[in-house]
């Protein structure tokens, strides 16, 4: 593992640096931020100065502090959603692969139909019905995103399921759950880890988009998508501070993509 890290290309190291920086910011948010998350400390839309690194937002709150706390909220939310989506997708996908037959048919057809529906539109419709709260947001996106995870984990598990060691365990009389947990999961890890990175990017951008539309975290909590929405009016006055949270979103996504790119290249044996 360490040897692999030492051999990593520059692009992957930049990616790791970006992700590490974001995680540290999220963890130590209260120490790093000079002001409170929701505290009004200055004038509306002040420019960069020595007191406020990034200026202030539309209510006069320190933008730098809000971005630091925003890192915490936004990343934690996206991570929780991706983790939930993976648990749904992997369990269902493995079930479909190990049981086969009708279970597989029914699950796959349902998933096909959900995937035929544009995700953003689906999410908007669900949120219009259940109302937007943090829990409904996380749950909705996790369910919609788990369809992609299901597809991958089913395909991977199908390949592993026909191996001799699975057959041996089956003949030993192990149950489906045991097979999934001890035989299939360890062997399916590499593609699933790479997929986790990709799905995280997707979920992260998706939550940012929904927050931007006003359906994500509710104010006064800080999250990057919502901050862009709140401060968008400043751009027409030539004040570019709302671009900072948007840039932060782009920055983290590029970082994760760089790592995933490298990981995929290593996993696929350096193919072109």
């Amino acid at each position, binding site marked *: 593992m360490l040897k692999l890290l030492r051999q990593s290309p520059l692009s992957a190291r930049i990616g790791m640096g970006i992700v590490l920086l974001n995680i540290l910011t999220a963890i130590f948010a209260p120490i790093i931020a000079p002001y409170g998350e929701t505290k009004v400390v200055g004038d509306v839309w002040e420019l960069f100065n020595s007191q406020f690194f990034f200026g202030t937002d539309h209510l006069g709150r320190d933008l730098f502090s809000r971005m630091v706390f925003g890192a915490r909220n936004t990343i934690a939310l996206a991570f929780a959603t991706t983790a939930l989506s993976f648990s749904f997708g992997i369990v269902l996908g493995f079930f479909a692969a190990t049981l086969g037959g009708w279970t597989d048919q029914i699950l796959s057809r349902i998933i096909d139909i959900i995937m035929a529906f544009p995700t953003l539109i689906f999410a*908007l419709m669900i949120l219009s019905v259940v109302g937007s709260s943090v829990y409904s947001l996380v749950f909705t996106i996790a369910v919609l995103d788990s369809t992609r995870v299901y597809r991958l984990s089913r395909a991977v598990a199908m390949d592993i399921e026909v191996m001799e060691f699975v057959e041996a365990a089956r003949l030993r009389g192990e149950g489906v759950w045991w097979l999934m947990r001890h035989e299939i999961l360890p062997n399916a890890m590499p593609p699933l880890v790479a997929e986790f990175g990709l799905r995280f990017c997707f979920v992260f951008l998706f939550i940012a988009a929904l927050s931007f539309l006003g359906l994500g975290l509710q104010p006064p909590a800080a999250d990057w998508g919502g901050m862009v929405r709140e401060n968008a009016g400043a751009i027409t006055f030539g004040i570019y501070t709302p671009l900072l949270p948007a840039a932060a979103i782009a920055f983290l996504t590029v970082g994760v993509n760089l790592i995933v790119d490298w990981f995929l290249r290593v996993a696929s044996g350096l193919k072109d």
Partner: protein
Amino acid sequence: MKHVLWLVLKRALASVVTILVISLIIFIGVELLPGDVAETVLGQSATPETVKAFRKELKLDLPPHVRYFTWLKDFVQGDFGNSLANGRPVFGLITWRFANTLFLAATAAAIAVPLAVILGILAALYRNSLFDNAISTTTLSFISFPEFFIAYILIGVFSVQFNVFPSLAAISPRMNFGEKLYTILLPALTLTAIVTAHMMRQTRAAIINVLASAYIEMAELKGIRRLRIIVQHAFPNALSPVINVIAVNLAYLVVGVVIVEVVFVYPGLGQLLVDSVSKRDIPVVQASGLIFAATYVTLNLLADILSMLSNPRLRKTH
């Protein structure tokens, strides 16, 4: 040829079933609404009489399966019900906005498709060169950017700094075609940036895939010129995946338009949908959601049919 026709028919049937199931999901979704739509909309202060009248207006007093079929029949006939927010017929609200959305998506596609295909072919031709790497890095970052980031950068540069394009795409029916194009150029460019990245990467991958096949190597060994190999040997076989890529991205374009419409306050269907979601204007959400879904499914169907028809191997099997 009969074989292909059968495949196409089967695929089309699957799409119809998908749209029907989606309509059912949309309908059931509203059924599951906590409490009663009538009570939710009218609020706590509503008297039992007004709630009853409202329920009657929404036909909530009928059993669910009857309501579903009535809703579906009315929908197909163009009667989408009335908006809860302002009582106007949803059909009138939606048609002009949907036309606007299609206009924006079509403009973006007209710029993005030729651009993406040319860039993709060039990147595949000069694989692993500086040009290829530069293009790959640029497109990878565009994919990682949220849509609104690109949109606000364009606004910042073109409408605030240089003041050449409007930051609000306030289109109106009185404008002529040129004026409309000028108004929507910034949103169209934003969409172009996003889809071009996807399309170009996939076009590049499709062509590289074909270039790796044995018959291309054979042609190279025979000493045929590179241009001729690409035009005569590689292109017909790459056409099917490329057409598929384009159609899938057009489907994405029609749906991805939502965020861009909100940024530029463009009077399209996406903006209407977002507004109605926050107002919980259910009939409008149902209708616009179903229209979006149907467009998306249809374009994906088109993608599959076109790639079936343009695949020489499928065409020749009897």
